[in-house]
């Protein structure tokens, strides 16, 4: 995209860096929009589903019969609302808190692959990166709680901090199972390895992973502060928890961050357990080859072929479909269950989630080591074949560029082939069975 700008607008002269800046801006706007519009959609979805659960219609007046413009109307109202800062508040922290929460919740989308090649930036350790960034969202809430200066928001912030930090432990343990099943932390690879028939999904790999998927979903609901675990903004006790003093745009940022991370967490669940982009609409190699395979890269050197594009579009549709189902389950839980007390949330985490996650983890490992039968064909798949199969970048990795001769740093960097071969060689030395890395 940057070359495009340089060729036609800025020319390759001194101004060429401007092309890259514009390309970078477009990329950021795209990511934010994909997620912001998604969050707005989910707010509307929540009000409609909540309405259905409570035997009423939900918004119907704004924008047509189904009221789908309701969130836009809310947004405009929130922007128009006065945004004051309480005088007792710590002005700087009060103002920056929503942006920290917003940034943390949205930056995790960089590494989240919507389909095989459709990802903002290939992060090899994507799972770990998403979990790390998810943990940052608690800062926004803590600073908001402390910044607003009122005792109620301080209570909310402390509860939130205690809850999210303690729920990261079982969350981490649940995420490790799909990672070791597929042998890699690269989300795209994990998604691609579950291609084929529905039984290839990791959730059906063995009973322990099934339990782990359920525990993951519970801990995910807790770590994004939803439903029975929404202690931080418990209306009936803490007035409105940490965002009591916020109003207008700042409050809507918190709202957006919550819905953004809700979709993020259910998206992660979809990729890790429910087959990423190989969902209900069938997609796979045969479709890509049918429409002109990716091997010879027919149209333009670096533009993916028609096959790759259709596979990408269907993959994104599958992913979003399953993500939305995950979000609907969260909404459904929220509108049926009362709220848990803070010590019950803590004991639930330490007495139930962590032991079950540990038990499931040991079970899943045992299942792998003993090589018990699994419905999916994960065994014959080597993870290296499933790196970014359909993306332009896949072509690049095929011819791994040799490091420049004079690059001293590259000397330690071992070329990829060396790793594959040595791993195979060292396997028999270390007797890692099954030959599956």
């Amino acid at each position, binding site marked *: 995209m940057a070359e495009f700008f340089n060729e036609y607008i800025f020319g390759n002269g001194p101004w060429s860096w401007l092309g890259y800046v514009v390309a970078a801006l477009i990329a950021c706007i795209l990511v934010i929009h994909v997620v912001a519009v998604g969050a707005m959609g989910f707010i509307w979805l929540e009000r409609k589903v*909540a309405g259905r*659960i*409570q*035997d*009423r219609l939900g918004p119907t007046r704004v924008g047509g019969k189904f009221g789908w413009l309701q969130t836009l109307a809310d947004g405009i109202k929130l922007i128009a609302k006065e945004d004051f800062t309480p005088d007792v508040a710590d002005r700087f922290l009060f103002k920056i808190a929503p942006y920290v929460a917003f940034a943390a919740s949205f930056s995790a989308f960089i590494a989240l692959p919507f389909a095989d090649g459709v990802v903002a930036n290939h992060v090899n350790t994507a799972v770990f990166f998403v979990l790390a960034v998810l943990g940052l969202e608690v800062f926004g809430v803590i600073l908001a709680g402390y910044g607003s200066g009122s*005792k*109620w928001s301080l*209570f909310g912030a402390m509860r939130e901090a205690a809850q999210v930090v303690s729920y990261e432990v079982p969350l981490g343990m649940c995420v490790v199972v799909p990672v070791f099943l597929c042998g890699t932390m690269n989300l795209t690879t994990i998604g691609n390895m579950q291609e084929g028939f529905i039984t290839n999904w990791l959730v059906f790999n063995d009973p322990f992973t099934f339990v782990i998927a359920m525990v993951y979903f519970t801990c995910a609901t807790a770590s994004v502060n939803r439903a*029975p675990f*929404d*202690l931080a903004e*418990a*209306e*009936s*006790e803490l*007035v409105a928890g940490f965002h009591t003093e916020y109003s207008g745009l700042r409050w809507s940022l918190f709202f957006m961050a919550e819905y953004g991370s809700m979709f993020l967490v259910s998206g992660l669940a979809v990729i890790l357990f429910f087959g990423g982009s190989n969902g209900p609409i069938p997609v796979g190699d045969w479709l890509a080859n049918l429409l002109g395979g990716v091997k010879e890269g027919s149209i333009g050197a670096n533009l993916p072929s028609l096959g790759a594009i259709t596979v990408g579009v269907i993959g994104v549709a599958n992913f979003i479909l399953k993500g939305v189902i995950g979000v609907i389950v969260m909404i459904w839980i929220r*509108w*049926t*269950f*009362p*709220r*848990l*007390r*803070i*010590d*019950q949330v803590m004991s639930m985490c330490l007495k139930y989630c962590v032991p079950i996650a540990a038990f499931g983890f040991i079970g899943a490992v045992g299942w792998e080591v003993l090589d018990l039968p699994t419905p999916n064909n994960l065994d014959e798949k080597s993870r290296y074949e499933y790196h970014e199969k359909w993306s332009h970048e896949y072509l690049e990795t095929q011819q791994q560029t040799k490091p420049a001769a004079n690059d001293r740093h590259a000397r330690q960097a071992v070329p990829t082939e060396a790793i594959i071969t040595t791993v195979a060689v060292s396997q028999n030395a270390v007797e890692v069975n099954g030959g599956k890395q």
Partner: protein
Amino acid sequence: MSATNIDDPRIVEFDVRTDEMLINMGPQHPSTHGVLRLALRTDGEIVADLEPHIGYLHRCAEKIGENLTARQFVPYTDRMDYLAAMNMNLGWSLTIEKLLDHDVPEKGRHLRVLIGEMNRVASHLVAMGTYGLDLGAFSPFLYAFREREKILDLFEKACGARLTYSYIAPGGATADLPGGWTAECSEFINQFKKIIPEFHTLLTTNAIFIARTAGIGVLSPRMAIDYGCTGPVLRGSGVYHDLRFHGEERYTELYDGYEFDVICMDSETGKYPDSHQGVYKDGLSYPEVPSDAILGDCWHRFYVRMLEVVQSVRLIEQSIAKYDACSGSHGEPIKLTQKLPLGEAYLETEAPRGQMGFYVVSDGQSNPWRVRARSSCFSNLYVTAPLCRGVLLADVPAVVGSLDVVMGEIDR
């Protein structure tokens, strides 16, 4: 802190110095029912001490009562417990009739039972809905209010008002029920019977609801009586006391010929009376008491109210049959400026929230010399102080919600 002196040896090792926080929950707080302020002294999340402050809704109805005649005071009784206004009118009318020694015809008696019990069902539905809200469950509130709307529509047909009716006046009722009203009412009751099990699945047997209410705010029978708690709060602690059975002769004769049960768990068998006779789904028994619920905790108080709704439904069915059977006047209300005889009268009735007492002292004029309203929630509220000591902050709304207090009645 001026209270500590440094040379005291015990204080020296004391290093973890946590300061206590004084927080005001209220007067404008989403979960205090109306304008109630709870001054909480908390140590972290644990409530060290709690003091309820009331009086924000005080309008001195008792002083106004001294300048109005008996019938003119009826609208003021509506606004005491505005969620059960019919029962308030009933209490005031019975007290005045006791003073005048005036009897109401048979049809008026059955009309009063019918309307009183309908209002009890509506009031308990509000209690159930808002208690769900206090604990964070939003949906039960809407289901409860959907049923309550139907009852309010029926009341609107009877007396024109939806909340403060002034319908039952000393001497009888301001107007008789319109034609076809009882048919509509029995049709509502039939479809309501099928919905009661729904409320139980929504809240009573919900695992998180039980975790939040069982074993919280345990009120022992001795303490309940000593604090003057009455109604579902008293029966929730296992005290077998219901004014419709054990009240004054003039009040219990209202319920002559009706059979229903006092909802109270007899401590031996640990079971509630489940004489549902087809009110509950065919043959299905009530959800039984969960294992970790202690007699006298929030769960029991909530459960007592839910079972009282079933008993009220039985009462309504019987009163419809009896009301249709008898004819004649429904009891014309007394003259507007009726002179009250010298003397005084005190009578307590079983309102949905507890025993609501009215005390009238008259010196022969039409305006009473002194009017006193004994509010049930007034004493029930004072129990929150000992119950909430040592409890977590999130349980305070659970305890206050289970006592089901209405500020209009407390502040008068």
